[in-house]
């Protein structure tokens, strides 16, 4: 905030260049506890960034709905009454072996595949008019057509074959926000006018039946991809609930063993083949992982870990580009001097006078919000300080004897700049680089926080923005807010420690910088 401009207005004559002994530098550095602390922190971050796929099993942005939106961390179970019995995501698939056939056990039930998907094939025999049928029917049959009979007596007039099966799953938590069943279903080989009715029921531990899905197929029915979800309007409708009611809160309000029952009934005279894939059950948890989930059910812990990658990448790249630009302009300006110097320095002045955050906001909105745009923009508006610093250093170096000597021996300007000036400004450049990193990281975080970052990339700034925008405050999800903020803080502190230490060792005269 308080950049002290022109703080080194009076350049103190630099020592004659001496060879830096690498060993000496490290030995000096080792003795600085803050520098070492910074280094350790950065190492931890780098390790986390590299090992991100090992540390966390989820993709930070692509894995959605791992649990319910805004699920709390698992350990909140022990800290808060509210989360004491909150559910953890239940996700399982019930295949042929998991089902318990309760009606029609003598039908042929086989496993098969179709379109590379596993199916259960239930071969329902033709509906037979068994002795149980109403004797009245036998008489009426001769008088009326089957259609007319059906109209008079409803479906019961025709003979039917039924099949049902169920499975049990335990549920011992407080009610979830929703539940979800998916499977594919098809009817084949049915007579064209026949109706095949399928139903899916949930039976609660106390024996209440909830009819959550049904399909009346007329004749053959092509494969349909069925999803039954507690949030769907048709499900609420079947259960006789209103738009704002939550079926899951009603159905899963008990604890114990729930039964899921699949029933199918057909009046086909040719029998029917029922195809059904294994049923996938998903009950999104209200507790999840180390840090819970965000508003899209993504894993926050993996966002935090992957955030280290992005932050380091952005910080390093932006700082590198910025320092590269600054050094180039600084050396050219200082060495060439004259009109070039004047023009370049005026340009630097103008850039310095442009309010950086507002222009970054405007530009990133204009250019679109990709990570690289942000990196380039941050670099473009941060190299001026380095340029001034390097320029003043170059001005003093230019007068030194060894530069004069090189010039006298016929070396080109470019050669002198690269081989004589550059190595001697390197210590300065190096510490500028390190100190530039945290500010690049923080600038990117601010832009992301304002909603101008890349929405597909999990940065810490974006985590904070999401936390603010998608409900962290209303549910007091401090575990969403605190980690990315602290991660940013420690990373920038680490670089500041390193930068200051490097500065102390390499550029003792330039220590007085913020």
């Amino acid at each position, binding site marked *: 905030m308080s950049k002290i401009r022109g703080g080194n207005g009076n350049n103190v004559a630099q020592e004659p260049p001496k060879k830096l002994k690498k060993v000496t530098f490290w030995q000096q550095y080792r003795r600085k506890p803050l520098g070492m602390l910074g280094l350790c922190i950065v190492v931890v971050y780098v390790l986390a960034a590299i090992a991100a796929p090992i540390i966390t099993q989820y993709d930070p942005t692509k894995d*959605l*709905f791992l649990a319910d*939106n*805004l699920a709390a961390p698992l350990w909140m179970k022990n800290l808060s009454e509210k989360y004491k019995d909150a559910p953890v995501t239940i996700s399982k698939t019930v295949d042929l072996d998991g089902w318990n056939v309760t009606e029609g056990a003598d039908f042929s039930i086989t496993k098969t595949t179709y379109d590379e998907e596993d199916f259960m094939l239930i071969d329902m025999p033709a509906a037979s008019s068994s002795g149980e049928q109403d004797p009245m029917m036998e008489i009426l049959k001769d008088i009326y057509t089957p259609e007319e009979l059906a109209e008079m007596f409803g479906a019961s007039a025709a003979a039917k074959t039924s099949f049902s099966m169920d499975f049990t799953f335990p549920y011992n938590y407080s009610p979830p*926000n*929703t539940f979800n069943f998916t499977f594919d279903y*098809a009817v084949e080989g049915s007579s064209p006018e026949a109706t095949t009715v399928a139903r899916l029921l949930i039976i609660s531990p106390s024996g209440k039946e909830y009819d959550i899905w049904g399909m*009346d197929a*007329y004749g053959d029915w*092509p*494969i*349909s*991809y069925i*999803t039954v*979800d507690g*949030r*769907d*309007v*048709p499900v*609420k*409708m079947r259960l006789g609930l*209103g*738009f*704002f009611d939550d079926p899951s809160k009603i159905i899963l309000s008990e604890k114990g063993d729930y039964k899921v029952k699949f029933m199918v009934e057909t009046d086909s005279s040719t029998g029917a083949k029922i195809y059904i894939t294994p049923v996938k059950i998903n009950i999104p948890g209200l507790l999840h992982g180390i840090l819970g989930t965000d*508003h899209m059910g993504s894993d926050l812990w993996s966002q935090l870990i992957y955030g280290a990658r992005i932050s380091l990448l952005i910080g390093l790249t932006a700082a590198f580009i910025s320092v590269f630009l600054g050094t180039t302009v600084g050396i050219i300006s200082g060495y060439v001097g004259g009109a070039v110097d004047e023009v370049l320095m005026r340009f630097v002045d103008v850039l310095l006078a442009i309010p950086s955050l507002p222009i970054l906001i405007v530009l990133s909105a204009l250019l*679109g*919000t990709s990570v690289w745009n942000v990196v380039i923009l941050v670099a473009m508006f941060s190299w001026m300080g380095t340029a001034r610093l390097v320029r003043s250093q170059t001005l003093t170096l230019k007068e030194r004897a060894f530069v004069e000597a090189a010039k006298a021996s016929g070396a080109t300007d470019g050669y002198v700049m690269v081989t004589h000036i550059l190595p001697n400004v390197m210590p300065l450049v190096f510490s500028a680089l390190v100190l530039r990193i945290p500010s690049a990281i923080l600038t990117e975080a601010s832009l992301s926080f304002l*909603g101008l970052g890349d*929405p*597909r990339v999990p940065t810490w700034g974006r985590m904070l923005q999401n936390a*603010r*925008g*998608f*409900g962290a*405050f*209303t549910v007091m999800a401090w575990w969403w807010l605190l980690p990315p903020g602290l991660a940013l803080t420690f990373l920038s502190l680490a670089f500041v420690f390193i930068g200051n230490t490097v500065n102390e060792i390499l550029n003792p005269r330039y220590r007085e910088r913020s």
Partner: protein
Amino acid sequence: MRRTLAIIAMVVMMVSMIGVAAMAYEKTGPRVDEIIMPIIKEQQARLIAFERGDSVVIPGLTAAAEIAKVKGLPNAAVNMNYGYHMFYMCFNMRKDPFNAQVVRQAVAHIVDRDNIIRTLFAGNMLPLSSFVPQASPFYKSDVPVYPYNPTKAKQLLDAAGYVVGKDGKRIDPTTGKTMREVKFYTPTYEVAATSAEIGRIIVEAMNAIGIPAKHEPMDFNVMLDKLDVADFDMFALAWSLSRNPDFLYDFFHSSQDVEAGYNRPGTHDAQLDKALEKLYTPVDLKTAKAAADASQLILARLMPYVPLYSRPYIDGFRKDVVKGWVSMNGFGAANYNNIWTTLNIERVSGTGGTIRWMLTEEPKNLNPVTASQAYEWEVLGRVAPMGGLRQIDPVTGEDIPWMAKSWEIGQWQVSPGKFGTLITWNLRDDIKWSDGVPFTSADVKFTLEYLRDNKAPRYLSATQNIVKVETPDKYTAKVYFSNTSYWNIDKADYCGLPQHIWKDVKDYKAFEPWKEAHPTVAGMTKLVGLGPFVLKEYKVGEYVRMIKNVNYFALPTK
């Protein structure tokens, strides 16, 4: 046929489930002395304000988390109504592959509305498969729909000769070559995350059945430019529609397939054109209804759009503090168009007193001629509504008399052989402006002519066909249109500019009536209107405060 019927039955049931329960409401009001509207733009702050009782009405809930939170509060009531919103995806029928009806139908079959609504909106949208929103009285419930069934889509394509090639992509039977990759434009993730996500989901499903497709999110303005010159394959956007289905003409009539026209799919269908022409200028309500039905049936077969979902109006009320809000399809319970809530809402403790009613955005511009945004009308609609000679009955959706006792729709001869609509308004004689000046037919004439002559953009299409307005007496106004259309009645229902104030306005665009003192009445501003409330104070960025209009014609009798 039976199969279709089964699906229809479901849709009809849904309508009944969400239909408006008969609610008790009065045609008088208001029942509170003051409404304070704090302006709170941030969702979280709104929730906190509602929870703490800093505001007892939280209108226009959209975000799932927000709805869940309000729903979960024991002292809150949530109200849902159908709206006129429609999110759709549109095909370009001018070029392959979407010039083939079967391809459009196949794509319609792979749209899993329930899944989209569930995953992206947590169930808070209504699946929509019609071309007229359910809230409209012209909505036809029994048109064929295309239920989600990728297998069916594959079968349709197979049968039409679009067989799957070696690379898994289908082959166009007309050229014998692999189908070209179509591009699906949506707004970007930054601007409209859900729209972009829908694009991704649908493109994935299209590729899965062998129609090569690519999702291209793009800047909204760039997209509109492309759409204007029909440079697209398919795109997804939303419309905010209206009660009258004449918008179908703009969207699908062949004459509208011009540069920057709204017939973006490029429908050219002689049958449809005929129905739409009838729909655009129907002579009476019966013709309008028949034409609307015919258009919807033809469109369901043509499938130039695939309608996806409609956003309902969801409003929250603190039931421990207020009562009396009126549910109304098409607008919602807390919308300014729903005058019944404005009149009937009162404190649980009795009539009078103050209620606090949240505004979700800055109203900014309170000039009724230029105000264009819903937030502005949330204030203006209660203070200085532009229309209101009729109102819509919240239960039946029919027009009922309001400031006009009655009206007649007739015809007059514009020129030999050419006829136009003639609307005659018979006004009530007991209405006063909020500053006490009587409201007469001269004000109706003034308003319509003022809007027409100044070409105010918002009212341009409504007023451009008005030839003249005559006032045979103080309470009769005759509005002459140059064309014949049943819809002209809506275009004649503007009366909200008080002549005694607006006749002196020099530049209507720069006029800020709420900032200028009233010429005669002390303590009032020039924002004089016919609404049940009077604007007392507007502290920009903070709140709007309105008090009961003591001159309101429908005040409850004591």
